[in-house]
């Protein structure tokens, strides 16, 4: 047992290796509701963006939303000086770097690409109405995916039929990611109270399901030797609570001017600990045999908390302007630590196991993230060419959460600018159809001289991940919304008063 744990300890664990279509900072994917998914709009998406806004809802709102995204990404890696293919390993003084053998140039260095498609649904329902002249009550229920995604990297043709090496066909990025899924699904309810025509407050809560299934290449000691290359597969999940709250202020006593602010606590409050299995295939690194191993493990996911603020102003009958943003504490996403089930993980700054962990063997592997807080800001406008047709335009910026030193092909982030164009159409009195396309323009990154992923101590040691990164994402948001008010006469508000 000690032997197997020790082997697992030194590296045949799996880090967290998802690279999904994050459409905001870090791993945030919440774009449901499109240009109307904001902290100051009143619809079922408010359950996540600002439950306080629900307090302004009069009637019933049913929401069915799909975000369909395409994504391309590239990672190009060059061998560090002295570590070129065929070089004498003694001349390669870069930690965790092993020169490619002379007969395998391109195994670890070169370009990796992916082209992926993904879709994320959101379903929500909310209802609200007056219980007295000045008091409104509202509630809602929704399912959505606020964080995560998936990736599947292209294979490396040059090694497709290799008779010498089993690993390089999975691409030069494989030491961080081959295929991966990481996502958190929310099943959330909300309750809100509207006080007069000026203020409404609300809270939301429910369960969050975190799922991670990832495959990556690993070598026992954390280097990138293709002679000793193995594989690790992590399959884990958890169910944790989540909680949020918010306020919507309408200073004019109507929906023409709306100011929303909300707070979403970290999933699981102190992080999510996913339980599952780590499958290991030691590859040639385990000379005594190459049988797969399986360990019961737990993985730490420290999701961030989010503060949102937004203002919407219906300036004229035909025009509305919106400005909103979020501040996301991705600095909580510190270490993705894989431990033997039942053990709490604590990692020192240098990547080593803290003394507070009784048996350091119980920490199988750790992937240092050390992310930074990030923010996003979006400006939007709507113009109604007729009351039933709303045209939408949006511009956005998202800051980058991942520092150069820990950026790897498994989880990508960039500074980005987004442009959205869409429309919302009133099909019949109670039914709306919305479609908006958002193109994200990511500023490429070069971390050749600034990446330090390979400098962490065991069990956080992993190969150097410096190189050139680029990415493009396009998201098509489509939703169908039904709004009606069976509780009062005349029925439902027009698009001019609620979203």
């Amino acid at each position, binding site marked *: 047992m000690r032997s197997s744990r020790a082997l697992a300890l030194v590296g045949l664990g799996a880090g967290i290796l998802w690279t999904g279509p994050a459409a905001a900072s870090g791993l945030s994917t919440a774009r449901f509701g499109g240009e109307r998914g904001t902290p100051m709009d009143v619809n079922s998406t408010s359950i996540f963006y600002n439950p306080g806004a629900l307090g302004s809802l009069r009637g019933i709102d049913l929401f069915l939303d799909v975000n369909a995204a395409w994504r391309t990404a590239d990672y190009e890696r060059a061998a560090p000086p002295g570590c070129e293919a065929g070089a004498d390993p003694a001349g390669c003084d870069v930690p965790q770097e092993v020169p490619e053998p002379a007969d395998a140039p391109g195994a670890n260095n070169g370009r990796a690409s992916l082209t992926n498609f993904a879709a994320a649904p959101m379903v929500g329902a909310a209802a609200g109405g007056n219980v007295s002249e000045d008091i409104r009550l509202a509630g809602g229920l929704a399912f959505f995916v606020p964080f995560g995604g998936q990736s599947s990297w*292209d*294979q490396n043709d040059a090694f497709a039929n290799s008779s010498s090496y089993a690993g390089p066909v999975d691409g030069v990025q494989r030491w961080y990611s081959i295929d991966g899924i990481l996502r958190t699904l929310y099943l959330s309810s909300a309750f809100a109270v509207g006080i007069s025509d000026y203020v409404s407050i609300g809270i939301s809560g429910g369960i969050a399901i975190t799922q991670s299934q990832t*495959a990556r290449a690993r070598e*026992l*000691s954390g280097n990138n030797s293709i*002679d000793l290359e193995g594989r690790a597969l992590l399959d884990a999940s958890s169910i944790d609570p989540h909680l949020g709250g918010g306020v919507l202020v309408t200073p004019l006593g109507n929906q023409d001017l709306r100011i929303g602010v909300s707070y979403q606590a970290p999933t699981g409050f102190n992080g999510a600990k996913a339980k599952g299995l780590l499958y290991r295939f030691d590859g040639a690194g385990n000379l*005594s045999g190459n049988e797969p191993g399986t360990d019961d493990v737990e993985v730490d996911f420290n999701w961030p908390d989010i503060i949102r603020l937004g203002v919407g102003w219906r300036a004229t009958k035909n025009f509305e302007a919106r400005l909103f943003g979020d501040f996301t504490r991705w600095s909580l996403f510190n270490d993705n630590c894989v431990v033997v089930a039942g053990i709490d993980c604590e990692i020192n700054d240098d990547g080593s*196991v803290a003394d507070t962990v009784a048996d350091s063997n119980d920490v199988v592997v750790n992937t240092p993230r050390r992310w930074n807080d990030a923010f996003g800001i979006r400006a939007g406008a709507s113009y109604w060419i007729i009351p039933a047709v709303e045209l939408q335009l949006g511009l956005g910026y998202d800051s980058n959460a991942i520092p150069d030193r820990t950026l790897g092909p498994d989880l990508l982030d960039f500074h980005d600018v987004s442009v959205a164009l869409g429309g919302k159409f009133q099909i019949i009195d109670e039914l709306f159809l919305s479609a908006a396309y958002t193109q994200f323009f990511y500023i490429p990154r070069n971390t050749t001289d600034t990446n330090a992923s390979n400098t962490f101590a065991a069990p956080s040691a992993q190969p150097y991940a410096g190189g050139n990164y680029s990415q493009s994402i396009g998201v098509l948001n489509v939703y169908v919304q039904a709004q009606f008010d069976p509780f009062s006469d005349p029925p439902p508000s027009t698009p001019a008063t609620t979203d």
Partner: protein
Amino acid sequence: MRKRPFVTFLCAGSLLLGASGCPDPQGQFDDFQRRFEVIGPKQVAGLCLSEQPDPMVSGSYFFSLTPTVSPDKPAPFIADVQTDGSEFTFTLTPVNADDRSTIVTMTAQGDPVMPQTFGPFLVEDGVSTVELVDAFVPGDSNPLSENNLTVQATLEMAFCADDPSILCGTFAANVTAPFALDLAGTFAFEARENDMNPEPPVVDCDGRQAAPF
């Protein structure tokens, strides 16, 4: 780059079902195993194994234990190996890491340092898994610090077909005293005409040498 048109097709199709993409981590994991099983023997040869390895020879070897965090400076020992071909035992005598030519007989605290014997270990098809239980590394042999260490280590050992005078492999270890620390790296037993030769020893199966002084 080879695309995955079928996978891409499925992913695109999954949009119609509201699915969120279709990476296949389990499939990738299984695919590697299948490829490895086909290619395995050649990879093994690259790891200094052969299908018919040369028999292990009893004798004295220069033994280098090289953590990945100290790739150019190993912990050096003299290893006296005794083997009958199917099993082997070895005795480690620590050497000063700063000169690779001085036997360490006493710790900096004045305690005597005695050679330690490990084994017997079974050799099958030229490979062996060696467990070093409570191996003592005096501070003078420690390439990372001047601390005396007590180490539990697992060595995955193979014969080098290219050079029968070298036994090599990888190790995983955890230091249990004076503090907990996890280490991994490579090791090599190198047959040398003069064990106390300070020349840089071989430290891994690729034939890489330690840095000269």
